[in-house]
């Protein structure tokens, strides 16, 4: 009964690369994809287009920093401020290690902060490590849903 991974990514190419990386990491978790911060919050709070989804929090949120509408830091802030969501591990994915972003992310309680490497092999390795740690090694909170992976 694996909980899904919530991937919040607006860039189509990054999305595809991330999915390939996740695929190669051999994780069994379902990957839910949302394309901006507002949709991510809708999913988490079961509102709007996601009002009908089944109950349960994702195993981990892979959150891009730069997102349309509601940016990554704002999503993180909202997650940490919501009682039902605040225990979800959040991994910030970002293009660069801008100092202020790192400082703010940690101040807001991020669990990990990953700068997407230019080298694809390194990227796959980083995603795999993250997935294993947060989606598998971490004890899944009760109520997680098993779901088939979308990309196989």
């Amino acid at each position, binding site marked *: 009964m694996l909980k899904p991974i919530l991937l919040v990514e607006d860039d189509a190419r*990054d999305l595809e*690369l991330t999915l*390939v990386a996740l695929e190669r990491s051999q994780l069994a978790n379902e990957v839910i994809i949302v394309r901006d911060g507002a949709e991510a919050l809708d999913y988490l709070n079961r509102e709007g287009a996601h009002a009908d989804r089944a109950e349960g929090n994702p195993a981990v949120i892979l959150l891009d920093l730069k997102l349309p509408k509601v940016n990554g830091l704002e999503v993180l802030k909202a997650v940490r401020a919501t009682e039902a969501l605040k225990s979800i591990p959040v991994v910030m994915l970002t*293009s*660069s290690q*801008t100092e202020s972003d790192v400082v703010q992310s940690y101040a807001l309680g991020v669990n990990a902060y990953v700068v997407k*490497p*230019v080298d*694809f*092999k390194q990227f796959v390795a980083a995603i795999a490590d993250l997935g294993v740690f947060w989606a598998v090694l971490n004890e899944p909170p009760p109520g997680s849903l098993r779901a088939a992976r979308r990309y196989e």
Partner: protein
Amino acid sequence: MNGDVATLGQGPSPTSMDRQMAQCANEPIRIPGAIQPHGWLAAVDWRDGALVAYSENWRTLLPESGDLLPARIEGVLDPVRAARHAWIDGEGPVSCGTLVIGGRRLHVSGHRLGERGYFELEADVEESGNRAPIYSLARHLVPMMQRTAAVDELCRVVVAEMKRLTGFGRCLAYRFDAEGHGEVLAEALDGGYDAYAGHRFPASDIPPQARELYRLNHIRLIADAHYEPVPVRFVDGRDGTALDMSQAALRSVSPVHLEYMRNMRTLASMSVSIIVRGQLWGLVSCHDHAPRQLSWQTRMACEHLGQLLSLQIEAKEENEQVTEQLRLRQLTLAIVAHLADSDATLQRLVEEPGPLLRLGRACGAAVILNDSCWSVGETPDRETLLTLGQWLANRADPVWHSDRLALDVPPSLATALAGTAGVLAISISRLHRHHIVWFRPEIVQTVVWAGNPHKTPTTERDTRLHPRRSFSSWKEQVGGRSLPWTSGEVHAVQELRQALIGVVLRRAEEMAEVAMELGRVNKELEAFSYTVSHDLRAPMRHIAGFVDLVLEMEGQGLSARSQRYLAHVKEASAHAGQLVDALLDFSRMGRSAIKHASIHTGPMIDDLVAEQNAMNKDRRIDWVIQRPLPRLWGDPVLLQVAVRNLVANAVKYTRPREVARIEISAVEDETGVGLSIADNGVGFQMKYVGKLFGVFQRLHQSESFEGTGIGLASVRRIVERHGGQVDAWGEPERGARFSFTLPTRAMQEAQAPEGDAAAETNTDTHGSLSPGGAGAPRAADSLSPDS
């Protein structure tokens, strides 16, 4: 001299003398109750013309009148009685023509004071035609007066004329100074008269009420100092002192003054007031050893001459004042213009010392800004200036001046200011100790007094107050004083102060604007680099990622050439990614704050050498490390980046050498301490040394030596942000040497701004004109390595 009352007698005790002096000042000189005997006075009710009071000597003019005397006086005055209606209250006497009484031809003058009319009769002297005094004045004197250039010259013309008109033996003109002492400006005298030119009469010679009377009544004649006063009697029996004789020509004067005249060997005297802008400016004073009577016409001519003189002095003084104001304003403008052209920091004022010193007619001037000062000309030393600044800061007034410092400042400061007696200071800021100060030296003046003004007269039997007896010259040295600051000068520095505050405020506004603009640009830059870091890096990643995927999935099916091309694409994108990273690091170096610490470069070099060895296991590198390596004062992270760049460069450019030799040693010079890294690598031509430290400047083809072209630019930026310097030497195929020095901790802290404004950082040298900052000379004795 000429006061109605003269002082300086003595009494048995100081208290008694003080009381007598006070009495002298209180002597009721306007209501003496008597007249001089050379004329006759009759006072009438101004409305109905009825006689109110008369001098007792009427009895000799109208003998055998008995109790009918008042009626007879009214009778003889009848022809002129109606003239009183033309009199203006408070104005001086006017002529009412002549009367013949008892066979004597008498001139009658009259004036009104309040509800009383006064008739004064005196022997008439026939004067007419061209000999009339008033005529000669208008004809000859006025043009002469107009031709004079200065006030003392004008006075010389007037005293000569006054002496000619009156026939008195000596005629003086003098001016009262701020303390009331009279300074003789001009004199004309006959043989046998003492000269008083250049002398001063002490202020105490003329008590205040006498000065006030001089202001109202512009001419006063004492025909004979031996005269017997003639009492004035009221018709209704009241005491004669009820009659105010302020404007009466015949008014009897104080017996003390008559004694003063006799002591001066003067039996006749006449004084004409010089009134400038409503104030008693001075007197023209005539003396004669013998009694001397002057006709009405002559007295009128003298009074008129006094008025002409007053007007001329007023005009000349106003001219001088306007000229002076113009001069001072031009100086103020020059000073402000100079300042506005500079960076508007106040210490720039001393760079243009001419106008500054001329504005205050000063021997020296100083700009004191909190604990810094800049001076020009002759000024007290730096310590004293700072102490003065502190003392001035406790005073509320924006402008402060003194021409006798010893009396106005605390004794310790006065001692330190020795030789300087005058200070004029303006305060530029209410928050800070910002002052501009002008200095004037002590001027030891010799003042020649007509008699010792301080002398306590010898004891006399008589305890009544006596005027001074000696009029022989008495010289006094007056010290501890500078030339006084004129009101024009004080006004001018006030104007300068306003202008400076305006300039300083405007400059502050401009600075605030620049700071805002800088902040805005900084924000833009930050947003820019943020965008670059996220948006430029992503496509690089995508290119590399998808090329990787293609190679991985289809690699077997591609031709060798296609595989090579794709490898190029991947490398190019990886390099672009590195460039972006390097640029971001470089811009971060310029923006992040420097966190200073003491850095031991020995262990740092050990780590960096180990790092390079680990990365270049296939190379032979001879490391020559000259210990001890210095301690540096700087940001450990940034400095490690800088040194790593230099070490990595040395390793990189020695790659063609079979055995690389890299020597690391300490350097020390007047700019501070640092490191030198020398290698036996490919080197460079010295003509390119200027390009070496620029961003994206590379001297080698990228195929030979990989790199982003940012390494040395980063080194320079890091070193310069520490206030240090970089240096490079190279020779093609022989090697290169790069070194840097950082100011020691002591140097850096000595340069760090201690105040709230950059303008206040220079505290090193008294009188220095160079602003603080990186270019300021560093003390040679602080060169030892930071310990």
